[in-house]
């Protein structure tokens, strides 16, 4: 029983990261109707950026967020201007398909680039307080991962505030709901797209940083994280960032449960199976409008 509880706690902490990873993908998909399957690679890049920032400047790993997030924002602007900005010119159906293909090409290129630059080895950021553990009711809670969970939630909350209090945040939501009506309200929809994409990339960068701190990065984690993000987006539906975060927690818990029940190797499979079932049965997810 205690092992199950322990596994669940660890699963929830990982789930928070799943939620953060999914938030960026959800934002971009909801607003631009673009499925960026290179999102996982952007997370990977964020992780490497954090790794090198910490190595170069000797910053506290969590402080590296302050550098990685703005850098990711800029990367998002560049990717939109150079690539995805062209994809949004097509109709919605063509757009989704093209973005899938382009995201795929981008993912492949980024993966190859990462292998060339940094080799296929796994990297992890070593933190001085990394081994600290909180003991609560017989459970061991790694402080590092708890901090990561808290940060992930904080970032999601910040995103939520941005989308509700900030003028352009509301414009982004309006564009997601009805871009023509947004235009008629005087909103420059292209600018809303750019902002949403940049924000999505920034979120990916943040997620990557946390992954590098609490777990590890290597060039191949891209596909893995893209799939996790996709699963959560489909589970939670579009339109609610908090809902997406909860969806991530649910996936984390489900994986922990299945790992406990069927054995370690089958953790992944259950998540994927749930994904396929929900996709076929209810494409709009559970929290979506």
């Amino acid at each position, binding site marked *: 029983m205690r092992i199950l509880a322990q596994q669940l706690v660890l699963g929830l902490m990982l789930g928070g990261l799943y939620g953060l990873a999914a938030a960026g993908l959800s934002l971009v998909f909801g607003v631009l109707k673009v499925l960026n399957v290179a999102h996982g690679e952007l997370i990977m890049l964020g992780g490497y950026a954090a790794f090198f920032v910490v190595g170069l400047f000797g910053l506290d790993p969590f402080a590296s967020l302050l550098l990685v997030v703005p850098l990711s924002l800029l990367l998002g602007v560049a990717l939109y201007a150079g690539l995805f900005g062209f994809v949004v010119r097509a109709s919605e159906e063509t757009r989704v398909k093209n973005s899938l293909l382009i995201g795929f090409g981008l993912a492949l290129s980024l993966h190859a680039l990462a292998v060339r630059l940094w080799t296929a080895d796994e990297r992890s950021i070593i933190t001085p307080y990394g081994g600290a553990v909180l003991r609560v009711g017989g459970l061991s809670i790694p402080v590092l991962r708890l901090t990561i969970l808290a940060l992930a939630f904080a970032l999601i909350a910040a995103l939520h505030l941005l989308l509700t209090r900030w003028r352009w945040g509301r414009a982004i939501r309006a564009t997601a*709901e009805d871009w023509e*009506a*947004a*235009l*008629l*309200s*005087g*909103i420059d929809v292209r600018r809303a797209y750019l902002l949403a994409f940049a924000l999505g990339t920034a979120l990916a960068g943040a997620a990557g940083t946390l992954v590098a701190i609490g777990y590890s990065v290597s060039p191949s984690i891209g596909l893995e994280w893209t799939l996790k993000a996709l699963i959560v987006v489909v589970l939670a539906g579009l339109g609610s960032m908090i809902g997406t975060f909860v969806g991530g927690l649910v996936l984390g818990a489900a994986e922990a449960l299945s790992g406990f029940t069927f054995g370690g190797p089958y953790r992944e499979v259950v998540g994927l199976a749930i994904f396929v079932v929900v996709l076929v049965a209810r494409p709009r997810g559970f929290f979506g*409008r």
Partner: protein
Amino acid sequence: MLEVQDLEVSYGDVRALGGVTLTVGAGEIVALLGPNGAGKSTLLKSIAGLLRPRGGSIRWEGEDLGAVGAHEIVERGLALVPEGRRLFGSMTVGENLELGAFAPHARRVHAESLERVYALFPALRERRGQLVRALSGGQQQMVAVGRALMSAPRLLMLDEPSLGIAPRLVASIFDSLVEINRAGVGVFLVEQNVRASLSFAHRAYVLEGGRVVGSGPAAALLEDPHVRRAYLGPLAVRA
């Protein structure tokens, strides 16, 4: 001052407008009548910048709007209340209205604009925290008109505002349009309810098959035999 000259708009190979010419003067209320599929919505959408015409021109206060983006057209003082209202359902009345004032020139006066909208539609003031999708059709239409008004337009265009709204509320919406016009805003109205719209419009055009087939002062059109037969007679039953 809106001047549409020989406007041609197509959806792929299908011609929706085949050379439309009309004007709306400053401070006028002009009605656009015609059967379904005549191209009335197409015309309004083209003026608002949502559709690119294949030929002809649209001039607003002397400027050619051909290359101007839809959101910039709002900044120039032209607002469209689209068919079906197209509100942001997941947001509140207040948020929808505020978004209407997104354009820079509208943003500067958004507090006054909001007051004016609430004065015009008192029901909205008490509902400003409610989600728009929870409102009735008539109330949603008020929000739609209000949102367009928040952009501080000099010309307000409306596409079938009375569609799906209880008759009593329709009358009050038309009354608001008259009041809006009295404050100096031009009104360009596409309406099914021909009798009602001709009763308060100054002029009207008749659009059929993508062309203007009739125009004149509203009173004159009310007497016009073709208009009477097609749109006002016992056979022309409107919902």
